[in-house]
């Protein structure tokens, strides 16, 4: 569903991504771990078509992102670290807007409320202006959008950074629901504990390269942490 082939991106002399090969199947959650600047966000931006690759290509459901970014995005839902909604509109109006842009049919108030409810947005907040929403609440609206769109690919860029533990747990519960519904998920995160809990596969990235990938269930939390720290200390030259 989400594939990259020898994907590279350089910014001037800096190689941000170096020959990345990925293949994330439906129902799989691939967590990218790595320090800042490892190439995680660059990978996501290339899959969204925000950046032009220096070489290689990115495919979403077989569609070359560079050739037809709009069609590729129809199959994707992107969740950035900060989901920004229009503060003048209510949660329901925001969802109607974004679902409408994605071509979701029958965006009736009942269906919109249903999706928001599934994503855990309290009924009392649905018609409140989104300007007063917490970060967790905004993430839930985005998840509601994923549900509404039945997105086949999710690209998550540190989605739980800054969320309190309860909101983070809730978010991951919703994420697993999406996975079970058949979504292919690529998540960039620093949260080793959560990554091991939800991921099918974990990839360690450094200096734009995927150093290694392994099944999440093959390592304990402690082993994962040690592996991560070892790789990062090499990166830092320690």
């Amino acid at each position, binding site marked *: 569903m989400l594939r990259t082939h020898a994907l590279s991106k350089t910014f001037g002399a800096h190689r941000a991504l170096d020959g990345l090969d990925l293949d994330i199947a439906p129902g799989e959650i691939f967590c990218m771990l790595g320090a800042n600047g490892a190439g995680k966000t660059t990978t996501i931006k290339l899959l969204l078509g925000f950046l032009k690759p220096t070489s290689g290509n990115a495919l979403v459901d077989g569609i070359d992102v560079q050739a037809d970014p709009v069609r590729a995005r129809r199959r994707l839902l992107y969740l950035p670290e900060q989901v*920004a909604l229009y503060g003048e509109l209510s949660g329901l109006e925001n969802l109607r807007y974004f679902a409408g842009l*994605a071509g979701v049919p029958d965006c009736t108030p009942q269906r919109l409320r249903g999706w928001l409810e599934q994503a855990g947005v309290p009924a009392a907040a649905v018609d409140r202006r989104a300007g007063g929403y917490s970060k967790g609440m905004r993430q839930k609206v985005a998840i509601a959008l994923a549900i509404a769109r039945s997105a086949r690919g999710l690209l998550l860029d540190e989605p739980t950074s800054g969320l309190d533990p309860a909101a983070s747990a809730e978010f991951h519960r919703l994420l697993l629901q999406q996975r079970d519904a058949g979504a292919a998920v690529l998540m960039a995160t620093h949260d080793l504990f959560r990554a091991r809990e939800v991921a099918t596969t974990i990839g360690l990235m450094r200096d734009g390269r995927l150093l290694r990938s392994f099944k999440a269930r093959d390592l304990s939390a402690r082993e994962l942490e040690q592996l991560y720290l070892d790789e990062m200390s090499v990166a830092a030259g320690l």
Partner: protein
Amino acid sequence: MNAAAIIVRTELLRMARGRWLLPLWLAFLALCGYAAWEGAAWSTQRGAALAAIQDEEREVHQMRRSQIVGELTPENKSRYGGAIYATAMSFRATLPQGELPVLTAGQAEGYPMAAKIFPFVASNTIFDEYMAGMENPAVLAAGRIDLAFVLVWLLPLLILAGSFDLWSFERERGMEPWLLAQPVSPLRYLLGKAAARALLLVAPAVLVLVAVLWLTAAPGAATLLQAAFLSALYGLFWLGFAALVNLFARNATQAALGCVAGWLALVVLVPALALGVADLVAPAPNPAERTNALRAMAMQARAETRQQADAASRPEGRAAPNIPDNLRKRAVEVERGEQLIRAAVQPYRAQDERRLRWLDLLRAGSPAIAFQDALERLAGTDAARARRFQDQAHAFLLDVRRLTQRYLEQDRLLTAADYDHGMPRFVHREAPSSERLGALAADAGVIVLFLLALLAVGARRLRRQATFIE
């Protein structure tokens, strides 16, 4: 509903909920109302002044007729007053107001609206009596707030205030990646957002203009449509400008500064610069120099005619004509004076024509100049119409002189019947409508060219970057 319609609907909702729209609209409405009221008051005063000048002509004619009736008896011949001679004819030529005088009240004050014409007047002085006198210093300092000022200067500010953060709002708040990750192209976002602003800013401004013009001037449908079309075009240009600035600006502050800088450049700086270029390349003739030159010509003509008259006085014993010789001498003097004046005026006129050609060319320097020009043409206060009136007034003076010459040659006196039936009358002839339409189309063309240039730069920017955020 397709994506573009969804963007437009949501933007309309957001703008309607924004707190800035209502105060902005109230301010614009108040300014339009005030400008229209000023324009209507000015137009009424101007209309009254023109009517008074036409009344003056009628009164003079009636007075002359009564004088003739009193003087024209054979026994009174020795006591003829001036009214009986053709040289006493006096006329007024007036430039009627255009179809939309309320649009540009200020501009019209620069041109004479009437001329006083009688056979012996020097052609360069026929407008002197009706040129605007000294104004109140407050009016001179502040200028008149007319509708053209509101439209040319303030309409862009209204549109820029409502669209300066067309996209930079999203960029500044970090919404850009989230929005662009939706299956909608950046171009469609921009067009949808611009369309919403066109509906909430440009369209109501045009409707307000149409309503105000309808209420204050009741022009014909064609003129009203032309005014609406040109205003919409000008408004769309500024909307396009705001959209273009948003393709480059990194945040709302930069976008606001870009918009203000563009407004200052195109509305304030370029017109001033265009005038400066015209002054440099084709300066206006020095009015004092021209007046002195023409005065010298008139004096020279008088001196020449006196010498000729002294040399050839009337032979002894010839019967005295009805019209005294001194009037014939004066007619010769005036004719000679006119020949000299025509020759003297020629270089100044050529200089004027050259300047006008340059000014015509320079209106392509900014949509603001082209739009101002179009509004003046719609108002009937444009320089071309004023010059046409002046040419027609001069032609009428020549007609009056020819008529007078016939009376002098035939030694014929004026009669009451002449005043009853035979007096010529000045009627201003407007330019053919095709000429006016051509000029308006040229102005619209300038605005369209600027709009196309914006679109070309915007398209290039979008093509070079797959998204706004690379």
